[in-house]
């Protein structure tokens, strides 16, 4: 009997709606968490693993020495490297291709690299217009690196104290 009365009061007192409206009212006055992508972007961890890039030293010399450790460690066989001896006697790549369809963004290449040449940037919004577009070559990777060197360097600096 008492249960029945309690239910009647709850139903006719619109308590459920009031509880819901309370949340709505609270949200009306708090800060919004929605971001207007691509104009707005969420913050990203310095360890985020996005599109790859090849870096250069400040003097413009490419870092990669064609040691092929990234190629060896890549679990998806996404990296293809050919090397040669450059005229100055150093070991350099003639080909450095990453197949982004194969890549699983595990970051092992970055870990294996002894000279911090191959890195994964914070870029994740990219698209291809053709099937072949999924393969980025050496020039493409170096261009991404050149364009984003500042951000890459900053991310590495931020993360360095945890390494």
């Amino acid at each position: 009997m008492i249960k029945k009365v309690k239910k009647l009061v709850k139903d006719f007192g619109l308590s459920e709606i009031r509880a819901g409206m309370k949340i709505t009212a609270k949200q009306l006055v708090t800060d919004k968490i929605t971001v207007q992508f691509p104009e707005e972007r969420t913050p990203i961890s310095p360890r985020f693993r996005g599109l790859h890039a090849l870096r250069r030293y400040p003097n413009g010399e490419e870092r990669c020495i064609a040691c092929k450790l990234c190629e060896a460690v890549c679990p998806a066989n996404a990296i293809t490297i050919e090397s040669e001896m450059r005229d100055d006697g150093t070991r350099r790549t003639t080909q450095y291709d990453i197949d982004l369809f194969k890549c699983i963004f595990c970051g092992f290449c970055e870990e294996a690299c002894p000279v911090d040449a191959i890195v994964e940037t914070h870029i994740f919004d990219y698209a291809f217009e053709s099937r072949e577009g999924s393969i980025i070559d050496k020039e493409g990777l170096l261009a991404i690196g050149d364009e984003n060197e500042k951000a890459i360097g900053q991310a590495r600096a931020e993360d360095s104290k945890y390494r």
Partner: protein
Amino acid sequence: MVDIEIEIDGNVVHGHSGESIISIADREGIDIPRFCYHKKLSVAANCRMCLVDVEGNPKPQPACSTPASAGMRVHTNNEKAKASQKAVMEFLLINHPLDCPICDQGGECELQDVAMEYGSDVSKFNEGKRIVADKGIGALIQTDMTRCIHCTRCVRFGAEVAGIVEMGATGRGEELKIEPFLSEGIQSELSGNMIDVCPVGALTSKPFRYEVRSWQMSSVQSVARHDLVGSNVFTQTHKGKVKRVVARDNESVNETWISDRDRFSYEGLANENRALTPKIKVKGEWQEVSWETALEAAISGIKKNSAEAFGALASKNATLEELYLLQKLTRELGSENLDTRLDVANPSSASALETTISLTGLEAVDHALIINSYLRLEQPMINHRIRKATLQGAKVSTVNAKAFDFNYRVASSVLSAPQNTVVTLSGVLKVLLESNSQALPDYLKGTKVNQAQIDIANALSAAENGVVVLGEQVSSNPCADQVAKLVEQIAKASNAKTLNASATGNTLSAEKVSFKPNGGLNAKQMFDADLNAFVLLDVYPAFDCVDSAAAIENLSRDDAFVVALNSFEDASVLSFADVILPLASFYETSGTHINIENVAQSYSASVKAAGDSKPGWKVLKVLADLLELPGFDYTDSSQVADDALSLSPSLAATEVDIIAMEVPNIATVWQYTPYASDVLTRHSQSLQQTQIGQVSEATVSEATAKILELSQGDCYKGVPVNINETVAEGCVFVHTNQARQR
């Protein structure tokens, strides 16, 4: 040699007294780290990596130099041993650069492996690292001596195996450097083995530099067919190309070593001169065509002519299968005109001598008589066995046209021009027969004997295990058969063994399938006889034929139809051939090599043939099919080999009369450098850049030079003349990398 029992890590193992702990451990599969120890080199005990704890000894002992004794208890991984291993590793890494990512040894480096297992992960060393300036040591070996850990394996290899002390340690302590003594680089014909013995990346292969990483390649077992030994090798391939050749252990054939020729010849495979597409000549112009068209052209040309006018010539380096099929094709056509002996002055009297000694048997000889041979360069692995015998006290005497530079001491040497060799050997035989009080045959009755001949004969008869080696240069001699007969007689009279190294490559396969005329024409007669159709199997007359100009002239006749199966493009072949069928080269075809011990070693193709070329046995099988010849139903090269190996060549003993033949007053001995001996090595650039590969000189004595009106710097048959007295009177010794000229 007493069997003893010792205990290593609690396991009871057996060894001989005096045997080192490390060799017992190796046999038992117990791992002891090491750098300076190498099973084929002397013990230096200078790296200290193999320190183990021997109970009863206050300090850890090096396992490589501590002889095992009965009841010894050894620990390789207790605390004491581990502490010393770790300490030694730390010392070795003090000066070793951390450039593994650009080091060609990375991934197959003994220092890397041992550091992973026994090293510490942090270094306490904060001082400056040592840097060593590099001195170039030639076209084959790349040095990076900063990486050197002073194990001295390369130094010991040079002194003990190669027999030419070229590398050494100079300075002490921090200043200690391993470097070549001479600035002109390493000259040994076995130098490439230093790359194999170097445990770090200080010595690496120059042609292979920065090509691929060691883990990217797959290794295929193969056999090198440049010489009579058939050294066992691994060809290491990447993306269908041979990137490197390294030695494969086979104690009875090549032990752990291979010659530089076997190691670096692969470079020729990638040469731009490779024949890659079938071609036919239409009205004097070469046209690239399909295989069908080329084969059609080949068989229609062959069919047009009668069988008697058909001849087949093959390279000595062809595989057993190729030789067998070409021989079968020729004989099925009804011709007996076939030969491989293109470089023999007089094929009708070519030397026929049986080899009666094994390669391992050569190590046990106590006297070796080397006739007409620069054995060190001709057959490096055979020479190495003889060198091992000399280290045990064996004496060597030579009968050569020139005093060659051997890597062991030659006790007595006789300089003898080719025209005098028969006389010289007759004298030796006469002394031997007289000392055995045997009856002299008629031809020896008038022979005069000098002291040198007596010395050689006495040394041979005093030897218990003698061997007489007949070398390549005898092929320049028109009386080669007489020389061979005398060698046989000398060996018989002195109870010595014989070794016939007069023809190299895969000659014994040609012998096995009787690739020589049985009633037909030999190589020389074919060029004299104006035949109408030829099949050439990897033959390049400019280099291969004894009278190259005459051969090319004959092949260039308008009525001579020439089908050339070539692995390389060659200007002279292009000038006379009518059809060119591109041939798979070494390592691109499966095949069989028969070595000096008559051991047939088969191997599979390591890589696919370059371009549009095809393995020779397939081309010859299809040619035979198109010619509608019976008995060529093969689907696999091993079936061909089975058929070929089931043959037993009829060794018809030919009677040889020993009479000094008419020979020109001044004879020429023509020998190619070892790196111009076959078509593949001729196209290997690095080999050509070595000192051995660049030799080109005609050595002549002053008196002979006067007769020939030559002076220093002139050219003799296109080769610069060098006048000195190391060469026998009455002959010109030509050692060159250039094609033969008249």
